[in-house]
């Protein structure tokens, strides 16, 4: 019935499928695998008996490239990993290298970084919300989300000239100071945005079909989430109150008040609620930060040529998708000896097989959506 050469599991080709079992190959070209993810599903009717993720279609060897570029040259590459949250990637990398160098960015730079990163978190979550909703069949939220995301991208564009792969920060601080009207524009957006989130929630949060489609779907217990190394909203949705911004504050997060929203059941609905709340919290951080951006230099004292002392460092930030870590080994030359990127999407995706077992095909789509993966980051 099925072409085993293209759809079979390794080792399963020979086994006879049960009478009602078929194998479906979801992706790499599929409307709702969010890129070139391929999931092989073994179905009993529409229920998933077994599954396997096949990734690597977007592998570009970022870590190898890093070993052949100087520290500054590599910075734009990290934007291409999680391309819907490039600012966060850049922040993580710059801070990791700064830590390796033993310097710190000036306060003004840190605050601007915080604002931009939080805006990026909102925009990343907005894109997640839109695509997740469209996966579950609600067409309309996507367009509202893109409308707001557009505002954020406009702010990025005015700040650094790029919208998507921004390369907004430099090692040691910022290249550009904020443009005239940055504060006003950001503030206008933030004030407006809290009502917008209400709008989205009005469409979905209390919607009975939405609840039916997300409650109890893809449950990941707290213990499992920790065991699977899940981070970010996936971990918090399972009820673990952990956020690197609070646990090990970086940039200027220790200056601002915000809460860590958590879920209880670890299902898709909880993760949805967590991300919605996170958008509100990010908005809150932005509003606080925009009120007083300290004056001062935007660039710390780093040389033109960076030669970090021999040694290694691990630094991670709370990216929109989860813990984004950089493990950099320096051999004292201008090029990193090894850059290891700990990609949140990659490790969150690992939980997929566990989460979809026993669910229906329709739920696979919902669960892939709720993990909020970006294949550029999974495959690097």
């Amino acid at each position, binding site marked *: 019935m099925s072409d085993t050469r293209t759809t079979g599991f390794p080792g399963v080709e020979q086994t006879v499928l049960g009478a009602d079992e078929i194998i479906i190959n979801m992706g790499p070209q599929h409307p709702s695998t969010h890129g070139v993810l391929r999931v092989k599903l073994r179905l009993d009717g529409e229920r998933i008996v077994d599954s396997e993720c096949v990734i690597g279609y977007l592998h570009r060897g970022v870590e190898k490239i890093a*070993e052949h570029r100087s520290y500054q040259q590599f910075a734009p590459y990290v934007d291409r990993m999680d391309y819907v949250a490039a600012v966060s990637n850049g922040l993580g990398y710059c801070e990791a290298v700064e830590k390796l160098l033993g310097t710190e960015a000036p306060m003004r730079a840190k605050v601007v970084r915080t604002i931009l990163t939080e805006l990026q978190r909102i925009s990343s979550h907005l894109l997640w919300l839109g695509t997740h909703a469209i996966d579950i069949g609600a067409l309309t939220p996507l367009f509202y989300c893109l409308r707001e995301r557009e505002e954020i991208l406009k702010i990025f564009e005015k700040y650094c000239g790029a919208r998507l792969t921004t390369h907004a920060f430099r090692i040691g601080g910022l290249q550009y100071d904020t443009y005239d009207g940055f504060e006003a524009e950001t503030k206008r957006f933030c004030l407006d945005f809290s009502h917008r989130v209400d709008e989205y929630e009005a469409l979905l949060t209390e919607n009975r079909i939405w609840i039916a489609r997300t409650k109890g779907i893809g449950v990941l217990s707290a213990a499992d989430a920790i065991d*699977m190394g899940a981070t970010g909203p996936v971990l918090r949705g399972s009820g673990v109150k*952990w956020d690197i911004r609070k646990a090990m504050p970086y940039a200027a997060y220790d200056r601002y008040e915000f809460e860590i929203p958590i879920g209880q059941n670890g299902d898709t609905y909880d993760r949805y609620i967590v991300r919605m709340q996170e958008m509100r919290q990010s908005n809150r951080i932005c509003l606080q930060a925009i009120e007083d951006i300290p004056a001062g230099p935007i660039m710390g004292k780093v040389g033109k040529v960076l030669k970090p002392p021999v040694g290694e460092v691990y630094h991670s930030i709370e990216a929109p998708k989860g813990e984004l870590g950089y493990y950099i080994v320096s051999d004292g*030359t201008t090029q990193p000896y090894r850059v290891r990127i700990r990609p949140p999407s990659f490790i969150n995706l690992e939980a997929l097989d566990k989460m979809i077992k026993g669910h229906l095909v329709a739920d696979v789509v919902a669960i892939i959506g709720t993990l909020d993966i970006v294949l550029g980051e999974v495959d690097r």
Partner: protein
Amino acid sequence: MVNDPSEKKPPAPAETPSEKPAGASAEKPAAAPPKPAAPAAPKPPAVPPPPKEGPVPLDNDLVKRFKARFGDNIREAWTDRKQAILVVDRESLAEISEYSRDDEGFDYLVDLTAVDWPKREKRFDVVLNLYSFKKNERLRLKVFLGEGENCPSVTGVWSTANWLERECFDMFGIVFEGHPKLTRILLPDEWQGHPLRKDYDILTQDTAWVRENLGIESGQ
């Protein structure tokens, strides 16, 4: 950084520029061989930042507990940029991992990766980044592996390790013993070579594979 509680944890042997850790064996700084096969021409030394950071030997309670339990299997302990690093014996990695998870509370395997030092006697570092939710601390375990030596798998301790070890195998060719299904993850299954090894040039590719499967001469 100041507020980073985890990094306060090592009873910080001061911010002072650390001289070579005396207690450590000479082999350890070899973790940074001065001249790896770096293809780039040495740049003119332009104001290098003062080398105030670097490895400092570490001997706090945590390390003492580990040493008390595993003795010589804990080869070394130091801190680098205020981050604790334990070098452990290859054979006892699984037990040490289990101990760190159950007794020390490092229940979250943040990352597992490797570093290739081709000039060194033991070629690979396998690096495990751990985190404890309870203590809000990070810990790094390292295992030195020679060419052809296998590393015990920690998939039984943390499920996360599954894909991470597969990636490590894919990129470095390190075999993890006891892994349920050690196949390539990012590269195609039939690919030859392990790209993150230092002797794998950045322009290298499996031309035979590319030609056969993509029908083009070169992927560059």
